């Protein structure tokens, strides 16, 4: 066991775990942040996508030792929280309004992929958005409304 320290959603965390433990398990089981989902465990579906130092990564493929000293952002860190009440951020609100979340299991990873795209200055063009979420599988929506939601936010930012 080794102690690893990093930031999750702005707050410091410390875990004593084997270094090769998946970041996904550390988030879900050791830190109780179950918003990040496991869909395949082999980096194909993107349900476990989180931001590590601003980069979109599949948490099932990242050993926690690689997060040591890093900055991790998960779906739980998107909404602005005040006194136990969460208000959706612009991206979450756009997903809700356009119907971009159906069963919701891909949604946390999809939101993180979209956040990474927007943070990198991505615009509302459809091809760019489709490329940005190509590592995140959705089986419900046909992607149409997800693309719409991201474009809506990219359009207002630009």
């Amino acid at each position: 066991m080794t102690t690893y320290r990093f930031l999750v959603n702005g707050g410091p965390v410390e875990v004593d775990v084997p270094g090769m433990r998946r970041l996904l398990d550390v988030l879900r089981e050791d830190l109780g942040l179950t918003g990040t989902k496991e869909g395949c465990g082999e980096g194909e579906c993107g349900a476990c996508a989180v931001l590590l130092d601003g980069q979109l990564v599949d948490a099932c493929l990242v050993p926690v030792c690689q997060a040591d000293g890093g900055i991790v952002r998960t779906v739980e860190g998107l909404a602005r929280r005040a006194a136990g009440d969460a208000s959706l951020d612009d991206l979450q609100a756009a997903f809700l309004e356009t119907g971009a979340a159906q069963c919701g299991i891909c949604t946390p990873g999809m939101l993180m992929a979209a956040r990474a795209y927007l943070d990198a200055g991505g615009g509302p063009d459809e091809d760019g958005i489709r490329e940005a979420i190509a590592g995140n599988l959705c089986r419900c929506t046909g992607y149409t409304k997800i693309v719409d939601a991201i474009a809506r936010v990219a359009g207002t930012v630009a």
Partner: protein
Amino acid sequence: MTSPRAGRALIAPPPRRSAPDALVVAPGQVMPGRAAAFPLRREGPAKLTGEAKYADDLVFPGAWYGATIRSTEAHARLLAVTLDPEVDWSSAVVVTAADIPGQNIVASIKSDQPVLVPIGGEILHHAEPVALIAAPDRETLRRLKGHLKLVTDPLPPVFDPLASDHVFAAYRIERGDVAAGLADADFVLEGEYRVGHQEQLYIENNAMIAVPEADGGVAVHGSMQCPYYVHGALMKALALSPEAARVVQAETGGGFGGKEEYPSILAIHAALLARRAGKPVRMIYDRHEDLAATTKRHPAIVRHKTGVKRDGTLVAQDIEIVMDGGAYCTLTPVVLSRGALHAAGPYRCPNVRIVARATRTNTPPNGAFRGFGAPQTEFAAETHVNRLADALSLTPLEMRLRNVYREGDVTPTGQVLRESVAGEEVLRRAAAAAEFETLRERTKRARAERAGSTTVPTGALRTEAARKAPGIGLALAWHGAGFTGSGEVHLASVASVELTAEGRVVVLIASTEMGQGTNTIFPMMVAAALGITADEVEMAPVDTALVPNSGPTVASRTAMVVGGLCIGAARRLRQAVEARNGDRPFAEVYRADAAANGATRIDERFEPYPGEPFDDATYTGDAYPAFGWAAAVAAVDVDLDTGEVRVRDVVAVDDVGRVIHPILCEGQVEGGTLQAGGYATIEEIKLADGRYLNDRLATYLIPTSLDAPRISTILVEAPFSGAPHGAKGVGELPMDVGAPAVVAAIHDAVGVWIQQLPATPERILAALHPGSGGPAS
């Protein structure tokens, strides 16, 4: 005083009107006469913030981890299950068939599938559960699993459904005289069409957690579509009373039919382990196990022999269907039934014979998947119709307009289509919106230019643009609304609406939310009937201890059938409350009424829809109370060098009876259209010795955002008068029509018919270059 009608603005009673008057909603528009704003997805904020609890997110302190020991042989006799005596087993529990307190049967249509194969019993497929093991932690579980061995004696397997003599179900539908019709035809076309397995690929794997109760009962929490199927299965296998078996649905990450029946066996497994261990037991499949062991869409072989007049009029259809049921019956009889009932397509024909059977093979059992047999047979029917049009030099649109069902026409089971017949409407809408005939002229010119060109080089010298052959294709489908035949009568579903003593309005149903929008549309439907806002209506948690059996969440029946029951219950509740409050509107008095009179709960039981009862023995009568209608136009590019298909655009037009929530409804059409696109082009399971070879997400491919076409949805409303709100369901419709549209577009692009799905590059190149095994270089 509010008019009692005001609250029905959202869901007006359906006027009897025929298709041409149907209300059409373009994407993003709101229907005239409806409220401008629709409620947001009710559980959306929880899903978007990560707060929604799916099964694997639930915490049960002290829970153990369970695993399934499966056969690795397709067909064998089980001689023994042995535990390595060198290993300390004291920290784990093992369950075999001998430990099952009730019947060793997974309750379904037939009692053929064991919970676990007993010693001396037959293993019928390679992923068959034989034993169960649970341990306090994953590491112990993983270590011990390898020390449990199966002793077996191999038996000869059967993999070819055509060669199998074990028949799960067989049907014959006959109308008119097919031999005479074929003799009378100007032209007869034959064809064989094949489709393979398809995986539902919900992104949340199957998952169940069982918790032993102090009184000997057990509660399961999991991902599922049909809580009462799970409930019945637990009662049978564990010999539990209805009260001792409790089933609670967790947030469910997609189903598509894959969580219709499979959760039953998983719940039994988890419950057996939990009772043995005396601890909660988590059984959360990983993707590999989910792909390897759970049900798939039935593969099918469909043969058509069709007679037509020179003008394209159908005169005879002779159809044979063989489906591969896999190792156990599961839902195969009803999948085959729906497949057979849709096999002739949505076309008038006086002489039809449909002969269908489903047989057993030594492969994992196949089961429910969106469309439930219809996508298989309608792919065959539509591709055959497109080939007929091609042979007769008619456009695909002309061919269909000549034959499509209109009001008053009669189906192969003798069902008269009295109302809500929108085949022509969706067809014309799709063709117009996609500019089908115009674009088809354009692709035809492109094809002619390529064929006649002496300057466009072939093979490696082709430019990027010259490699791409554009094509456009059209398909039409019908989909029977609700359960097949007498199914709804047998289900006798009950749905309830309660005004609680605290003055809350609560909907109690076992119909599950799995992404399609149940949680959002039921408050809308009930609120409209009560004259209150949707926000004032709560959904009870889906827990068999609380909600009545409103039937399974399948067959696109939830909005139509269960929605109808809830509206009925709400209307009765409103009547009761208003009657004892001097006819003042429910909205004004319900809180005070609850305070004064306590709770009022209305249970509404299903009553048969009007029409001719279906005769299961002769396969005649009204197979469905109504049909939904769908048309799709797909535009593709086919790479002439690689054979790859890119589906660029799809126009999907679906008649759902009545749109309850346009955004959610469009979402169903878009998602179904993409699943159909995957079925058409990339989704395939390869087998060797009865085992799925590509049983990982790295090897079973589904469409990504880059593979997905732009999908334009047009919703049509041809309401069904038998349902109080006119809805006919939407979930499965788009699945029926996408694949044949794509295959037609491939033919339009490159001139070859792909009669086996998926239309892979290999199959397209083999068709383009017969005998060469690939493109000429």
